[in-house]
C-alpha cells in the first residue's frame, strides 16, 4: 500500500509538471494583458511597461516558466497580482469552505444515489423504476443555477428554513450541498442501478438465496457491497472535481470557496491565482483517484495487495 502511495505521488509530480506547462502556455497566449489590467485605464505605456517588468512578464516564456517551477518546488505558488498576498495563503483560506462543501455534496449525492439506485434495481422494469430513472434524467440534465435558485426560492425565501447565502453555520451548507447532491445523485443512481442489476443476476446471489437467508440480507449483505466498487471510483473523480471549485453554486450561495477565488482571478487576469488553483485541482484529481484506489481493496479482497 505504501508502495502504491509512493508510486502515485511520483506520478502526480509528473502530472503537475505537465499541467503547469500546458496552463502556463495557454495563459501566455491569452490576449488579455494582466499589466494593462493592473495599471488601470488611464495608465501610460511607460507605467504598463514598468508593471510588466516588475511582474517579470517581459522575460522570455521559458525563463518565466523555469522561475515558476523553481518557486513551485519550494511550495511557493507566487503572489497574487491584485491582492498582493501569497497565492498559497489565499488558497488555504478558501480550503475549509471548499472541503466542507465537497464532503457534504458527495455525502448527499451518494446517499440519494444509493437509495434510489437500489430501489430502481429492485423494481427493474416496473413503474417505480421508470419514475426514478425519469427523475434521474431530470437531475443530470438540469442546469446548476436553476436547481440552486429553485431551492433558494422554496427553502430560503418561502419557507425560511435555511439562510439565503453565506458561510459559517451548519444551516448554511444545506442548500449548496443539496444542489450539488441532487444534480450528482442522478449519475450515482443510474450507476448503482445497473451495478445492482448486474450483481443480482450473479451466481453468488443465487447461492445466498439458496441458503435461505432473508431477501433484505441478500440485498444488503451480499449484493450491495459488490455493487459499490464502481461507485467508489466515481467518488474519487468527484473529489477532484469538487476541489477545483463549483463556480456556479458558490456564486449563487455566496459560498467562499475556491470557485469564487478563481472566478474573480479570471476576471482580473490574476495569473498566479489561476495557475495555483489549476495545480491544486490537478493534484486533487490525482489524490481523489488515489483515495478511491486505497478504499476499493477494503471492500474487494481480490484487489487487495499481496
Amino acid at each position, binding site marked *: 500500500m505504501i508502495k502504491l502511495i509512493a508510486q502515485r505521488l511520483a506520478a502526480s509530480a509528473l502530472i503537475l509538471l505537465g499541467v503547469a506547462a500546458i496552463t502556463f502556455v495557454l495563459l501566455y497566449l491569452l490576449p488579455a494583458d494582466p499589466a494593462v489590467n493592473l495599471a488601470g485605464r488611464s495608465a501610460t505605456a511607460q507605467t504598463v511597461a514598468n508593471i510588466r517588468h516588475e511582474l517579470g512578464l517581459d522575460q522570455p516564456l521559458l525563463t518565466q516558466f523555469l522561475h515558476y517551477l523553481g518557486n513551485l518546488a519550494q511550495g511557493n505558488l507566487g503572489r497574487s497580482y491584485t491582492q498582493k498576498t501569497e497565492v498559497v495563503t489565499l488558497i488555504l483560506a478558501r480550503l475549509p469552505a471548499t472541503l466542507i462543501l465537497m464532503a457534504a455534496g458527495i455525502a448527499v449525492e451518494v446517499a440519494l444515489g444509493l437509495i434510489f439506485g437500489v430501489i430502481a434495481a429492485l423494481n*427493474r*422494469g416496473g413503474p417505480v423504476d421508470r419514475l426514478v430513472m425519469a427523475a434521474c434524467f431530470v437531475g443530470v440534465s438540469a442546469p446548476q443555477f436553476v436547481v440552486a435558485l429553485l431551492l433558494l426560492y422554496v427553502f430560503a425565501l418561502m419557507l425560511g428554513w435555511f439562510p439565503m447565502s453565506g458561510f459559517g453555520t451548519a444551516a448554511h451548507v444545506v442548500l449548496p450541498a443539496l444542489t450539488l447532491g441532487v444534480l450528482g445523485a442522478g449519475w450515482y443512481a443510474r450507476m448503482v442501478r445497473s451495478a445492482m442489476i448486474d450483481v443480482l443476476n*450473479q*451466481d*453468488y446471489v*443465487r*447461492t*445466498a*438465496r*439458496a*441458503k*435461505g*437467508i*432473508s431477501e433484505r440480507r441478500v440485498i444488503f*449483505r*451480499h449484493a450491495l*457491497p*459488490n455493487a459499490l466498487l464502481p461507485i467508489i471510483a466515481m467518488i474519487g473523480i468527484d473529489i477532484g472535481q469538487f476541489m477545483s471549485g463549483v463556480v456556479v453554486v458558490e456564486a449563487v450561495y455566496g459560498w467562499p470557496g475556491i470557485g469564487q477565488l478563481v472566478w474573480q482571478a479570471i476576471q482580473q487576469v490574476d495569473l498566479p491565482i489561476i495557475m495555483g488553483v489549476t495545480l491544486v485541482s490537478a493534484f486533487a484529481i490525482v489524490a481523489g483517484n488515489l483515495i478511491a484506489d486505497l478504499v476499493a481493496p477494503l*471492500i*474487494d*479482497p*481480490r484487489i487487495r495487495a499481496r
Partner: protein
Amino acid sequence: MTGPVGALTSSHPLLTVSDLTVDALTDRGAKRVLDGVSFALKAGETLCLAGESGSGKSVTSLSIMRLLPRASLRVVSGSIDLAGTELTRLSDRAMRAVRGGDIAMIFQEPMTSLNPVMSIGAQLIEAIRTHQPMDERAARARALQMLDAVHISQAERRLSQYPHELSGGMRQRVMIGMALSCQPKVLIADEPTTALDVTVQAQILKLIRELKSEFGTSVLLITHDMGVVAEMADRVAVMKEGRIVEIGGAVDVFERPQAAYTRELIAAVPRLGARAGTDGPPRVTGEARAPMAEGEDFPILTVRDLTVSYGGGAGWFRAGQGHAAVEAISFDVMAGKTLGLVGESGSGKSSTGKAVLGLTPFTGTVIIDGHVVGDHGPGAMRPIRRLAQMIFQDPYASLDPRMTVGAAIAEPLIIHRIGDKADRADRVADLLRRVGLMPDVASRYPHEFSGGQRQRICIARALALRPKLIVADESVAALDVSVRARVLDLMLELQETEGLAYLFISHDMAVIERMSHSVAVMKSGKIVEIGSRREVFEAPRETYTRELIAAVPLPVPAMKHVEGETAPALS
C-alpha cells in the same frame, strides 16, 4: 436443521414432485418449459436428472427451491411435497427455512457461486446461523468441522480466506460443506462437476458419495454427462424438452433403455476405449482409405521449443519475469492427420494453440507448411492465415451478432481478395452445404441458430480459405452430447474429403480418443507424454496419463468407482 418439515415416515418418499408444469414468460406469450414432470426421491438415494441443455433439468431444481426468476418463469401447476409438506403453498418465510435447512443446493460454477467480497468463514457461518441457534463461536467450530469433512486442509486458515484464493475444486468443496452444514434432508447438485477438470471431478463425486452416507442425505443430481450419471445414480430420470421420457434404476436404464431418446443419448456418449485396437479415427465417408501417395506423410506443422510466457511487465505479476504457460514443447502434426492435445485447465494447451497461429507472443520455432510463424508484421502472416485457421470453443461468442452468416463466412475471402462477389456467394453456398446447412441460411443472423449450427458456421468460415491445418480449441466442449457427436463426425468427414490436419485441443479424453491419430498429454506447460493414439491410450507410460484415463467416468453403471474394496457396486 429444524425446518418446518416434520420427520419422515419410512413408507413416504422424501421428496415427491407431481405433475410440475412451468411456463416461461416471453414477449410472445407463455412457452411451456416443464410439462407434467413427476418423480419421487427416496430417503438415502441418489436420483439423477439427466438430459441435454434446454431439457428442463435446472428449471426443475430451481422450482423445488422456489428460486425461479419471478419475471421470466412461473410454476403453472403441480405439487412438490417434502416429507408431507407441500412446498408450493408455503409462505416465503417458511420456504426460507426449507432452503438451506431441509434442502440445500450446489451449483455448476464454483468460480462464481461464492460471494467474492465475503470470507469463506463468513459465508459458512452465515449458512449455519441462519438455520441453527448457535452463537458465533459455535458456528465457527461447526464451519471448521465442515471444512474438515470436505477434506480442506488448513481449515483454520481457510476461514479467513476469500474465494479467489481457492481453486475451483476447493470452492466446490466449500459449497458442499456449506450446503451440508445444516444437515439437509436433500442435496440438490446442479451440474456440480461440469466446470471442473476430470481428476477434480472424480474427487468431488467421491466426496458427494462419501458425505451422502455420512450425513444420510438424499441427493438429486442434475447432469448432462451420462458418465457422471452412471458413476453416481441409484435411479435415473431422463429428461427431454420439459418432460421425463424415462425413469428407472440406473442399471436398467443403461442396459435396457426403453425410450428411443435414452438410447440415442447413451449411444452419443463417446466411450473411452471405444477405439481400442485401431490406429486412427473411424472412417465416416464410407470410402475406403486411399493408399497413401508418395510424400504425403510429411509434417504440416512443426513446433520446436515453443515457450509462451505471460505477465512479466507491469500489472499484477510485476515481480519477476512472469510465468511460463508453455515451456519448451516440441511436436509435429502430420498432413491430413490429427494430433490431440489433451490436458486439464492451466496445462497450457490453449496457449499452445494460439501461439501456433501467431496469436500470442512466443519463443521457439513454429513452421506451418514451410512458412515460419513469427513476429514479422501482419502482412507476412497472410499466407499463414490461408494455411491455418482456428475454431474456437464458444460458438455463441465467436460470431459477430450483427453480421449475417454469409457475410461472416465470406469475410476471409474478402480480406484475402479471393474471387468476385458472385464467386464468393457460390463459395459460401458450397461451404454451407458442406457443413450440413442449407445454402439459403446465408442471409440470416447468428442468433437464429442453435449452438451446434453455429459451430458448423464457424467451421465453414474456417474452411473458406481452404486451409491445410485447423486448430480446434475445445470446439465441441460447449455442445450437448448428441450435437457434439454430429459435429465431431462432420470434422472427421471434412478431414477425409479436404485432407485437413487438426491440432485438436480438448480436456475430454473420450473425444481425444475418437478424433486423434496421435496424442500429446500436457501438464503444467509441458508435454508429459506424446505418441500414437494407440500407445498413449492403451499403454500409457506416464502416471499422469493413467490418472487422467482412470478419472473419466464411464457410462456403464457396473463400472462405478467404489470407495473401499468390500463395498458393493450398487446399494
